[in-house]
């Protein structure tokens, strides 16, 4: 039962307030028309779906209606950090391996 820090409300809120919104940092291609069906299909459907550290988007549905990013472990469910859209994570697979 996740307890998620919302960077815009500045406090932890219980999972019930949020919607999961999929893998983070998948930018929409600049010129979709120029992409092959394969490249477009990759963008649409294919995901990293890692076992372990996952950067994902959450939507604070009943709170501030803001999307933001969360770095969460998909096995332990431990949340390493929440950070706003556009920001880069301070916890990455590399930094984790380094640690």
């Amino acid at each position: 039962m996740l307890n998620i820090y919302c960077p815009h409300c500045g406090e932890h809120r219980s999972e019930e307030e949020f919607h999961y919104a999929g893998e983070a940092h998948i930018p929409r291609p600049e010129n979709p028309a120029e992409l092959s069906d394969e490249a477009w299909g990759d963008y649409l459907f294919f995901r990293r779906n890692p076992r372990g550290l996952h950067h994902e988007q959450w939507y604070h549905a009943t709170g501030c209606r803001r999307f933001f990013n969360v770095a969460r472990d998909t096995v332990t469910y431990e949340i390493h950090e929440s950070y706003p859209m556009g920001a880069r994570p301070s916890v990455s697979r590399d930094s984790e391996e380094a640690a």
Partner: protein
Amino acid sequence: MTQLTLPRAESPLHHADLPALAGQDQKGGLILREERFSALVILRGPDDDPGMRAGVEGALGAAPPTEPCSSVLGDDGTRLLRITPDEWLVFGPGTQRQDLMSRLRSALQGTPGRVVDVSSGYACLHLSGEALADVLKKSTSYDVHMRNFPPGKVVGTTFGKGQAYMLRTDADSVLVIVRRSFADYTWLWLQAAAEEYGLSIAG
């Protein structure tokens, strides 16, 4: 063109006929009052824009607060609730229903500030009584303890299976603001949640 009667307004809980239930006894652990016909305006804009801040301050006597989950009091009973980083719910007494919107709009001319009238869009339920905390604990996953939810704080959170903004108006009372179409559900919910403590209606 037939003769028109003046428009008759009905509050979100009109059908519950609260006035008829009110007044009887106020001994209930939970005391509910529907704040009817308040003026509600949604204000949108970048919270660091000087023009917008100045405009709002000119119109309401207070600039939009920038602290998350905070609210400030303005002139003549107005209140600005920060509900998202670029969104405030401006709350005014019913007397300002006609002009709050226009005052703000003109004050925001030439600024990125935008306003939307939502006076009819929400039900405002004022809750108090010694069972207030317990009823809220049954209704929302948010931590309503005074240490975490002091007077002036406003949060958007879950209420029953719906959504609400909760404003701690003072130590003993909370204003619960839900979308109008959820008013009846929230009313049913509160009756059930307060049953063991007793529910009184204040007019």
